[in-house]
């Protein structure tokens, strides 16, 4: 019997053999982290990287030049910050879109889980590899 649990709480569900825990709280925590970071500083990040600096408005137009961004991501704090933003934003989007499938009448199962959470995982690994490649 296929069991699907959509809950924000850590409850035990009857599995095939023994009682199994749902992995949902982990995905919900990643979703929540991304949602919280994006709600706190998301609009400002978009404004800085996509509007202010490209237009040279309020910030210098060369603020994101190669040496500057390289120095940022070679710094341990900068590295952690960039990884947190990119990875949590991806996990947030993947989880929320996955759960919206139900609202469109799409019966999302483990295949859809694999696609959405898998994408977020691949994006996280790609970001981590890029951050490792730029050195310390």
């Amino acid at each position, binding site marked *: 019997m296929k069991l699907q649990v959509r809950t924000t709480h850590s409850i035990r569900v009857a599995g095939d053999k023994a009682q199994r825990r749902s992995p949902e709280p982990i995905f919900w925590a990643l979703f929540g982290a991304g949602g919280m970071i994006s709600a706190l500083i998301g609009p*400002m990040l978009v404004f800085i990287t*996509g509007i202010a600096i490209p237009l040279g408005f309020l910030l210098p137009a060369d603020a994101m030049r190669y040496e500057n961004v390289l120095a940022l991501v070679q710094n341990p704090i900068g590295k952690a910050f960039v990884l947190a933003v*990119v990875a949590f934003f991806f996990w947030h989007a993947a989880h*929320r879109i996955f759960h919206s499938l139900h609202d469109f009448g799409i019966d999302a199962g483990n295949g859809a889980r694999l696609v959405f959470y898998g994408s977020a995982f691949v994006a996280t690994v790609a970001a981590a590899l*890029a951050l490792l490649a730029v050195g310390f």
Partner: protein
Amino acid sequence: MKTIDPLHKPGHAAGSPVYLAGRSGQGGEAANPRRPYVRPMAGWWRRNPFFVRYMAREGSALFVGAYALILLVGLIRLAQGEAAFNGWLAALQSPLSIAFHGLLLAVFAFHSWTWFEIMPKTMPPVRVGGRRLPEAAITGGALAAAAAASLVLFVIVRELAR
């Protein structure tokens, strides 16, 4: 005389969810002389402004994902070297990119607003002096924290860019 099984519901037998039954019509209405009315679920959220707002709130995730993808591409371009990264910077300066980031900014602001709007319902109740903290205080405090965090971020970027 044909007997009618009152428990027989077409569509349900195939294991399809109730909300799909009206659309797909599995089993066919002709098979069941009762012809039960199944309310169609297509476009359900457009019938109520509350649900439209709910769908808009959930839909903001598409834009959060799009922005994360833009940043990820920049990060990969950075790892590939200066020429590749300059290409990404040039793309950010295109009018299309500026316009898209304007849209992103609006959606992100909407996300911030709605995230903190529902936060009193998604977090455990906060009690101050034996009384439950009102929802407006939580939302207002969180929005103030977001404004402060954004200002700090802007000042840090401004100082780093000097």
